[in-house]
C-alpha cells in the first residue's frame, strides 16, 4: 500500500532483522503445533546443503552453535510450557537463528609501505565505522611481520590516496580487507627474505625470519635488521599491494548463529525485562576477541531496542513522524541491558580466504528481536505479532485472551 509518508529506512542487516522475527515466530508456532521443543524442531530440520542452490557451504557450524549455546543458556531448564509460571511475573525462554552472507569478496586492496626505520604505513580505501578496521589491519600485519603494532600506522578512508576497498555494508569489511592485509604482509616478508638472501649470498630457504630480523639458519651470527636490509638495498621504502583473492566457486558462503533470550514479563504493567542473552555464532575466525564482544554487545542491544522500545511513530492524520528525538524514540540504556554471553563455535574458514574471516557486524543483531519475541511468547502463552513489543500490546493481548 502506498501512502504519502516518508520511507522506512532499515539499519544493520536490512530485512533480515524483520524477516528473522517473522520466520522464527512461525517456526516456533510450528514446533508448538507438533508438540516439540523449538530447539529440537530446528535441529531436526537442519540443512546441511544450501537449500536454494543445493551446494555445500564453505562451513556451517550452526548445529554446534545450537548445542553449545543451549548448554551455556541452560535451555532445557529455562524453556517451559508457555505461560506456565503462576504469579503476575512470568519468565520465558526463546531462541532464534541467523543466516547472513558476510564472507566478503574481491576487489579489496591495501598498500603496505615499509620505511627504512622499520615503521609501516598501510593504506586501505575502506573505513572504520566502529567495527575495529584500524585495529585488525595493524594486528594482522604485526602478526605476519612479527613487529610491534605501535610501529604500524593505518590510513583509511581517503580514496584519493588509498587503493580501492569495499564500502561498509553487508558485514564485508573484515572478510574482504583482512586477506588483502595478510597478502601484503606476506609479500613484504618474502621481499625482505629475498633481499637478505642476496645480501648474505645464501639461498632464500636458508634465511630464518623472526621478529623483523633475517638470519642465516646455519650461522646465527649472520643476521640483518630491517633498516640494514633497506640500506644495503639502497632503498628508502619498500611498497607492496595486497589483494583479496577470489571466492571459491561452487560453495555458498554464509555466517550462522543462534541467540537465546530469557525474559521476565510483568503481566500487570506489560513491561518486558530481558534477563539474559546467549549468542552462539559461526563467524569464521575471530580476529580480536574484544572487538568481537563489542560488535556483539552493540548488535544485541540494538536488537533489544528493535524488539521492545524503538518505534517510528507517525501521525496517522498528517503522515509526520513524531518520534524525532531520543526522548520519544527510545533506545535501550545500560539499565535495560541484560547479561550477555558470547560463544564462538568457529575457528576459521580456510575455504573463504587466507584469514578465514566472516563478518560479524550484522549477524550480531539479526536474531535478537526474534529470540526475545519467542521468549515473551514462552512467558505469556500469547504471541505478539508486531514489533516493538510494547506494554500496551502485551496488556491488550492478555486482555483479549481472557475475553
Amino acid at each position: 500500500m502506498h501512502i504519502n509518508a516518508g520511507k522506512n529506512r532499515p539499519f544493520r542487516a536490512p530485512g533480515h532483522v524483520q524477516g528473522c522475527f517473522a520466520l522464527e515466530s512461525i517456526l516456533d508456532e510450528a514446533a508448538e503445533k507438533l508438540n516439540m521443543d523449538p530447539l529440537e524442531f530446528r535441529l531436526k530440520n537442519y540443512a546441511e546443503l544450501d537449500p536454494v542452490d543445493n551446494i555445500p557451504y564453505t562451513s556451517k557450524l550452526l548445529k554446534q552453535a545450537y548445542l553449545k549455546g543451549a548448554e551455556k543458556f541452560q535451555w532445557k531448564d529455562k524453556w517451559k510450557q508457555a505461560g506456565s509460571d503462576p504469579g503476575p511475573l512470568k519468565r520465558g525462554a526463546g531462541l532464534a537463528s541467523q543466516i547472513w552472507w558476510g564472507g566478503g569478496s574481491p576487489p579489496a586492496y591495501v598498500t603496505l609501505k615499509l620505511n627504512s626505520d622499520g615503521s609501516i604505513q598501510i593504506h586501505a580505501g575502506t573505513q572504520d565505522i566502529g567495527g575495529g578496521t584500524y585495529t585488525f589491519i595493524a594486528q594482522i600485519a604485526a602478526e605476519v611481520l612479527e613487529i610491534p603494532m605501535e610501529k604500524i600506522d593505518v590510513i583509511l578512508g581517503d580514496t584519493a590516496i588509498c587503493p580501492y576497498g569495499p564500502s561498509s555494508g553487508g558485514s564485508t569489511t573484515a572478510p574482504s580487507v583482512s586477506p588483502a592485509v595478510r597478502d601484503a604482509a606476506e609479500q613484504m616478508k618474502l621481499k625482505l627474505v629475498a633481499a637478505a638472501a642476496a645480501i648474505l649470498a645464501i639461498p632464500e630457504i636458508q634465511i630464518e625470519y623472526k621478529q623483523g630480523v633475517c638470519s642465516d639458519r646455519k650461522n646465527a651470527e649472520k643476521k640483518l635488521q630491517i633498516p640494514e636490509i633497506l640500506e644495503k638495498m639502497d632503498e628508502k621504502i619498500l611498497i607492496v599491494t595486497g589483494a583479496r583473492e577470489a571466492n571459491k566457486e561452487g560453495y555458498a558462503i554464509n555466517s550462522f548463529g543462534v541467540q537465546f533470550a530469557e525474559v521476565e514479563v510483568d503481566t500487570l504493567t506489560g513491561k518486558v525485562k530481558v534477563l539474559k542473552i546467549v549468542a552462539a555464532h559461526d563467524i569464521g575466525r575471530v580476529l580480536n576477541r574484544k572487538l568481537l564482544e563489542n560488535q556483539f554487545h552493540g548488535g544485541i542491544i540494538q536488537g533489544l531496542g528493535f524488539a521492545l522500545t524503538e518505534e517510528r511513530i507517525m501521525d496517522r492524520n498528517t503522515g509526520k513522524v513524531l518520534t524525532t528525538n531520543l526522548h520519544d524514540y527510545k533506545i535501550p540504556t545500560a539499565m535495560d541491558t541484560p547479561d550477555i554471553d558470547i560463544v564462538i563455535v568457529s575457528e576459521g574458514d580456510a575455504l573463504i580466504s587466507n584469514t578465514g574471516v566472516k563478518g560479524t557486524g550484522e549477524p550480531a543483531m539479526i536474531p535478537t528481536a526474534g529470540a526475545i519475541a519467542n521468549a515473551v511468547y514462552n512467558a505469556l502463552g500469547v504471541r505478539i505479532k508486531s514489533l516493538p513489543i510494547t506494554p500496551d500490546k502485551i496488556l491488550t493481548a492478555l486482555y483479549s485472551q481472557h475475553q
Partner: protein
Amino acid sequence: MKRFEYIQPEKLSEASLALGKSWEEALPYAGGTDLYGMLKHELVQPDKIVNLKKLPGMDKIEYSQKSGLKIGALVKISQLVKQDVIKEKYPVLHQAAAQVASPQLRNMGTIGGNLCQRPRCWYFRSEFQCLRKSGDICYAVDGENKYHCIIWRRALFHCSSLRYCSGFTGPGCTINRRK
C-alpha cells in the same frame, strides 16, 4: 533565536516586577532543563529571561508535624531524594523524584520548574501548530496519544483542557498530577 534581555534579580519583588504579567514577554529561569529545549526549538521567544537562582530562601525543604512539608520552588529534584523525612513520610514523592529523567536532569531541574513544565506532548514539541501554540486543534485527541497518560475511564482529557496539568516527566517515566 530571538535576542532577549537577561535579568538576575536578588529580591522576590524585583523578580515579580521583571516577569510582569505576560508569559509571552518574560520567562523565569531556574534549572533550565525545560527552558533551553523550548528556546532551541523556538517554542518560546521571550523578550526577557529572568534568572531566579539568586532569590533568597527558596531552596529550602521544611518539615514539621503540624504544618507538614514545605518545598521551596528552587529545590532541586535530587535534593528531594536526599531528604530522609521525605523518604519516610512521603514515599511516593521520594520514589518519583528518584526515578524521574536522568541524574543530570535531576541535579539541575527544580521542583518549581518541574511543576511549571510545559507539556511533553510530541505534537506540542514539534512543528504542529497545536492548541497550545495558538492553533485551534489538539492533535493528540485524534492522533497518536498512547503515551499521553491523561486517560480516565476511557475518556481522554487532552492537555489543553488541563491548564495546570503538571508532573514529573522524563525518559521512561511520567507521573502526572492534576490540580
